[in-house]
């Protein structure tokens, strides 16, 4: 298939969107789901956020369950959660997503390291310190998926993925449960932890 240089679709949002999905064993369910957002362009401005579902199946929010979103742009993230995250197969039907508590984010600190051994994002706000650590990183892979193959099934997605073979999430110093496992994505076996730079979501034009 040949490229079309000027994509006819509508750019929805663009930025960084790494994630850490931890499981109860290779064949078990997800124990912890987390996504980080550094959005540089959207119809609702720019901003940062992290979604943490430490109890994905539990219909409870913070502090009863470790289900929360920390953000410095609530309106933008309401739009992204409703239009994108709720449609991703990993998050569909998770009671913790609907019940998560919305918290104000005060600061974000990126610790890129050497981009090979360790990469971290540290977020603080509303009495929560969240640490997301990606370890043992692979090389950057440029990915581009059609709407039929994208996580939302509605958008094209372009990104640069780096697989992390290990990862951990801490909330106020406590490690969240689960471990990185493998999964099939982009036609390869890759881990459930990843960095995603230069990510853009595009709504393709309706076929006339």
């Amino acid at each position, binding site marked *: 298939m040949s490229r079309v240089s*000027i994509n006819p679709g509508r750019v929805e949002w663009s930025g960084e969107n790494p994630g850490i999905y931890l499981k109860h064993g290779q064949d078990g369910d997800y124990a912890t789901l987390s996504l980080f957002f550094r959005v*540089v*362009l959207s119809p609702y401005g720019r901003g940062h956020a992290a979604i943490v579902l430490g109890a994905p199946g539990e219909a409870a929010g913070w502090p009863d369950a470790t289900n929360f979103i920390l953000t410095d742009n609530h309106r933008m993230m309401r739009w992204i959660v409703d239009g994108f995250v709720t449609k991703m197969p990993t998050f569909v039907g998770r009671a913790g997503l609907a019940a998560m508590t919305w918290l104000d984010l005060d600061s974000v600190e990126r610790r890129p390291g050497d*981009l090979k051994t360790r990469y971290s994002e540290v977020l603080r706000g509303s009495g929560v310190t969240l640490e997301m650590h990606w370890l043992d990183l692979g090389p950057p892979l*440029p*990915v581009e998926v059609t709407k039929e193959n994208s996580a939302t099934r509605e958008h094209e997605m372009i990104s640069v993925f780096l697989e992390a073979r290990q990862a951990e999430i801490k909330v106020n110093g406590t490690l969240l449960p689960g471990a990185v496992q493998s999964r099939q994505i*982009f036609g390869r076996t890759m881990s459930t932890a990843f960095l995603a*730079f*230069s990510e853009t979501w595009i709504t393709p034009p309706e076929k006339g």
Partner: protein
Amino acid sequence: MPLSQPITPGVVDWTGENPGILLKNAADGFAAIALFFRIAWSPAGQGQVLLLYGAPDRAVGPPDAPNVLMSDNYALADYLMRNFIGKLAAFRDAPAFGGLQHLSANQVRSSGDPMSHRYSETISGDGLAVELVWEELEPPRALELTPEQTGTREHVMFTVLVPAGQAQIIVNGRCLPGKVGKRVQAGMETSSAFLYFSETWVIPPRE
């Protein structure tokens, strides 16, 4: 348009943001040029780099002319000069390329909203404060360019383009001369002032 193969073959050279302002003089030459890089991944790490040709036709740096490379990661600035900027004819062939002075960028700050009416980057350090301002912003467009369509002629490039109808380069409070003009990218007429977000340069595999 996305390809049937989800992973684009090739090696990522760098990825990040790469906005620029090319101001033209009355003779349709360049009066001033600024190219800014906020790199999320490269073999030389993350960082921010400003290439400024305040006097493109002069092969000297400060204090005689504001021709500078400012960065918070010297290895990254060297990498970009060697592997990217030096391959773009418009930059490599300007006399200022040989007179660049490399300064530290102690503070870098972005403000505004690229989907509103104004966006800016401010880079300061070593006695120099450079503000890049983009206004009259158009809606974002996603581009995928083949090697024949890129400045280096070597890379496949993905980016999100936000053209700007007006722009200024302000050095220590003084606007550099020149006006935003037209240019053509991938057959599309666009502005010589632009924001580029989520930009990735990939070296395709040899045939």
